[in-house]
């Protein structure tokens, strides 16, 4: 494909604007956070075109935003953020993505690398055994329709009530692990049938569980508030979402919106951007079903966190409490939220679509947990399994210019097929082993798709958002053990 030839106006070293007049139909300009070096691959991939397409959506305010980890998605780019005014704006399932509330949860421990290394194989085997993963994996959680309905409404709390984890986990989960407005009646039978057997499973694809070692601390004060106190400390990162349930919710509602786009007189440059007014029946139905899927994902990560604690307790012969296994935070990467933001000096109620982007609220924001009121909301940015992951915090600047949002990860550079053709799963395992990383995967061939080479370097991504000021780096950790579905 030819390179994208549109105009990118440099604002500063990390901000590039797509002017509103690039394409007739754009309602706002586009704004891409990137280093100069990153722009080349974005042009190659045509992603600025998708940023421009999102700017067509009715009610969009400010900018159609793109984070530095942006890559080509369906309709909306992955790494895109768009806020629509409630009163005349739209909500688009494609602006959230199929894996609704795909997100990450970070647990800390008081264990050190020296204590964990000798038992890493045993630990990974125990985790692999205890946490269902892989394609079509089915969970240990048995639910009937009634229980599923409760799970959809209560989210992580549903799991805590049933003994999975602690009440205090909820306090350090975005939205308390429960997005309001969930209505199980807006979810199809198909979604429920797909969701029931998969509750409490890690899944496949880019989902993973990592045992990590803290390698660098950039802000020791903030890190210590998160309980990250020393280099060599062991952390656990869980990355999963709403499984087949969220996919079916997205599929069902995309179909509905596909049909009503013309009824509402909305013109779109791509069918996958299908949307409906936020205040319409179709818009409200989607938001109610999306909340169910978001809650499903939070319940899912809550259960998995519990099994992680159980597995550590078994391997180290101490309770999870004795091992200091507290939750640092849990964030959504794919979600639409009704929030208040200041746009051009006006306080507006907007629907913020974050598709492959993280909420990054500043210190003293009412939605930031008490313990992080002084630091800002923790932002968790996983990298690929051969590199590293970051912990950051939200900033006032993010609130002012990116609707309180920042990047979410590394972002793919190689298609899965291209990765598979050029890299062998067995080589990935050997390479990771040579770096001291133990991997256990449901499918060895699928590992190649997730090799480091398939991703941008997350360090470059995080450096851009740090330099741009829309989040601040706190700590960096590298994996020593990985479970892949």
């Amino acid at each position, binding site marked *: 494909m030819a390179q994208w030839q549109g105009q990118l106006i440099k604002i500063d070293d990390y901000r590039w604007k797509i002017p509103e007049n690039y394409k007739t139909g754009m309602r706002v300009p586009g704004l891409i956070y990137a280093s100069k070096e990153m722009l080349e691959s974005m042009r190659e991939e045509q992603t600025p075109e998708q940023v421009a397409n999102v700017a067509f959506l009715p009610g969009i305010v400010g900018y159609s935003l793109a984070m530095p980890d942006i890559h080509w998605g369906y309709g909306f780019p*992955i790494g895109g953020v768009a806020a629509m005014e409630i009163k005349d704006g739209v909500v688009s399932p494609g602006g959230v993505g199929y894996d609704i509330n795909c997100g990450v949860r970070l647990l800390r421990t008081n264990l050190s690398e020296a204590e964990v290394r000798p038992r890493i194989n045993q630990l990974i085997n125990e985790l692999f055994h205890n946490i269902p993963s892989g394609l079509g994996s089915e969970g240990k959680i048995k639910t009937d329709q009634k229980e599923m309905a409760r799970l959809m409404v209560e989210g992580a709390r549903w799991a805590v009530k049933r003994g999975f984890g602690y009440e205090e986990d909820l306090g350090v989960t975005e939205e308390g692990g429960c997005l309001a407005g969930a209505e199980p009646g807006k979810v199809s039978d198909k979604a429920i049938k797909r969701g029931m057997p998969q509750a409490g499973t890690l899944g496949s694809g880019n989902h993973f569980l990592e045992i990590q070692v803290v390698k660098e601390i950039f802000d020791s004060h903030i890190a210590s508030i998160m309980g990250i106190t020393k280099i060599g400390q062991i952390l656990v990162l869980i990355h999963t979402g709403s499984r087949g349930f969220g996919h079916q919710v997205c*599929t069902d509602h995309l179909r509905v919106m596909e049909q009503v786009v013309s009824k509402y007189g909305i013109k779109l440059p791509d*069918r996958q951007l299908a949307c409906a007014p936020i205040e319409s029946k179709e818009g409200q139905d989607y938001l109610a079903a999306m909340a169910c899927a978001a809650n499903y994902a939070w319940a899912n990560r809550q259960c998995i966190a519990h099994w992680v604690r159980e597995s550590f307790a078994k391997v180290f012969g101490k309770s999870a409490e004795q091992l200091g296994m507290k939750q640092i935070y849990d964030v959504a990467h794919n979600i639409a939220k009704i929030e208040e933001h200041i746009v051009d000096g006006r306080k507006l109620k907007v629907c913020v679509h974050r598709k492959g982007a993280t909420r990054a609220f500043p210190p003293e924001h009412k939605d930031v947990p008490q313990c992080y009121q002084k630091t800002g909301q923790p932002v968790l940015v996983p990298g690929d399994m051969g590199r590293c992951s970051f912990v950051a915090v939200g900033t006032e600047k993010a609130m002012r210019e990116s609707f309180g949002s920042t990047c979410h990860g590394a972002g793919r550079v*190689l298609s899965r*097929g291209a990765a598979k053709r050029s890299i062998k799963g067995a080589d990935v395992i050997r390479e990771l082993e040579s770096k001291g990383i133990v991997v256990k995967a449901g499918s060895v061939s699928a590992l190649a798709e997730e090799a480091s080479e398939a991703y941008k370097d997350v360090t470059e991504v995080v450096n851009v958002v740090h330099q741009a000021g829309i989040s601040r780096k706190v700590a960096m950790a590298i994996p020593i053990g990985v479970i892949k579905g």
Partner: protein
Amino acid sequence: MKKAFEIIDHTADVGIIAYGANVKELFSNAALALFSLITNLRSVEEKLHLNLEVSSEDGESLLVEWLNELIYLFDVKHILFKRFDIESLTHNQLKATGYGENFDPMKHKIKIGVKAATYHMLKVDKNGDGCKAQVIFDI
């Protein structure tokens, strides 16, 4: 014989281009392409059959709906299909019989988990030579 389908690569995902002498064949080949992404079709036997019916608003969305129905059946009922008889096909409705068997982990290797057929870059073309369709899947 003209090829039935080919696989296309997309940064985060994967897609298919299906061909057919007519629309029925196109829908059948698109479904075979889907199952060939999931597993090796040669390992699937015709042990069961299922009546399938989907409806939609237009030909393009009917194709997405059809493929999503099959993805759903695999995810929930674990059925791998290897052949389809498309009995009737209008611009907004399809009736077919699918032949295949239940997924058996000892027998079938799952290549990728396909989670949804998308409207993204969706194309259905008809010309004198026949039909062609492009679909991108979320995996």
